[in-house]
C-alpha cells in the first residue's frame, strides 16, 4: 500500500511526503546529513544576494542536486511585488517553476498577508509558475488559492518556528474537505508526533525547518520526522478506530474461569 502511494504536485510524483527547509543549520555539512536522513525529495531554499567576497562555500555545493527538487521561497517578502520579483529571480537562478510563495503580514507572528498573497499568486500562476502558497489555516482562503490555480495549499499548523504543533486540526480537516489540490501543513511542527498528527488528519504532506534544524540532534530528528510522516500517512490510509468514551474488551469473554 505504501509503495504505490505517491504525492502528486502539478503532475510530478514524489514518494516522500516530508518537505524540509535548509535554514538554520550549524553547517552545510550538517544540512546535507539531515536532508539525507529526512528522506525528503523537495527542499526549500531562500533567494539572497551573493556574497561578493565569496569567502563562504555555498549550500548547493554540499548537496546532491540530482536527489532533490528545489523549492525556492519568498521568505522575508511583505508585499506581492517583492514576492513576485523574488520568484522571477528564483526561476532564472534555478530553471524551475516551483515556488513556495509566502507574503508575510507581521514580523512578530510571521502570519501570512493573505490579500497580497492572492495578488502575487494570480500573477505567478499567469506567468506559468507552480505556486505552493504558505497561508492561514483558513478554508475560504485555501479555496480562493485553489480557484486561481495554485498547485497546492500550505496552511500553517502554528506560527513559523513556534513548535506549537497543529493548533487547529478541525480547520485543517475542513480545508481537506474543501480543496482538491494537495494540502501540506507548513510551519508549526515541533516534534515527530505533530507531523504524524498532520498526516493522520489526511494531509498530503508536511513542510518543516526549525523542528529539525533546531533540535539538539538535527540528523536524528530528521530521521524521526521521516518515520513520523510515513507512520501518520499509513495510519490515515489504514483507517483509525472511532473514539469511544467507554471500554471495549480485547480478549474474548467466552471461556472465562468460573
Amino acid at each position, binding site marked *: 500500500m505504501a509503495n504505490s502511494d505517491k504525492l502528486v504536485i502539478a503532475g510530478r510524483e514524489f514518494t516522500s511526503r516530508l518537505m524540509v527547509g535548509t535554514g538554520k543549520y550549524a553547517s552545510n555539512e550538517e544540512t546535507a546529513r539531515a536532508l539525507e536522513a529526512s528522506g525528503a525529495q523537495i527542499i526549500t531554499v531562500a533567494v539572497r*544576494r*551573493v556574497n*561578493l567576497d565569496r569567502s563562504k562555500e*555555498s549550500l548547493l555545493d554540499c548537496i546532491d542536486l540530482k536527489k532533490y527538487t528545489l523549492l525556492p521561497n519568498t521568505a522575508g517578502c511583505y508585499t506581492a511585488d517583492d514576492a513576485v520579483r523574488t520568484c522571477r529571480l528564483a526561476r532564472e537562478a534555478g530553471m524551475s517553476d516551483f515556488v513556495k510563495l509566502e507574503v508575510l503580514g507581521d514580523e512578530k507572528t510571521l502570519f501570512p498577508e493573505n490579500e497580497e498573497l492572492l495578488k502575487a499568486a494570480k500573477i505567478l500562476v499567469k506567468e506559468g509558475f507552480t505556486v505552493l502558497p504558505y497561508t492561514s489555516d483558513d478554508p475560504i482562503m485555501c479555496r480562493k488559492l485553489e480557484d486561481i490555480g495554485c498547485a497546492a495549499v500550505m496552511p500553517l499548523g502554528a506560527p513559523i518556528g513556534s513548535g506549537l504543533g497543529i493548533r487547529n486540526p478541525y480547520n485543517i480537516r475542513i480545508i481537506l474537505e474543501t480543496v482538491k489540490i494537495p494540502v501540506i501543513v507548513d510551519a508549526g511542527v515541533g516534534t515527530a508526533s505533530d507531523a504524524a498528527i498532520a498526516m493522520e488528519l489526511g494531509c498530503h504532506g508536511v513542510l518543516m525547518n526549525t523542528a529539525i534544524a533546531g533540535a539538539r540532534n538535527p540528523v536524528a530528528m530528521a530521521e524521526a520526522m521521516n518515520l513520523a510522516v510515513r507512520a501518520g500517512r499509513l495510519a490515515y490510509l489504514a483507517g483509525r478506530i472511532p473514539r469511544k468514551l467507554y471500554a471495549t474488551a480485547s480478549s474474548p469473554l467466552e471461556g472465562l474461569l468460573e
Partner: protein
Amino acid sequence: MDIAINGENRSVSAKTVKELLESLDIDSKRVAVELNMEILPKADYLTRTIADGDRIEIVHFVGGG
C-alpha cells in the same frame, strides 16, 4: 566605470554581464542577475553591456525554510 553591485559601490572594468560575473568568480549557472531592476535571461549575459551608474543585483540560493 562605477556601478552598484548588491548595494555596494564598485569600480569595474568588465564590459558585459558575463565579464562581470567572471571577474567576481561567480558561476553564472547558479545565479540570477537583475540589471536596473530588469531580470536578465542567462542567454543575454554575453551581449548585455554595463554602463556607468548601473545597479546590478546578483542573487543565488541559500539555506532557508
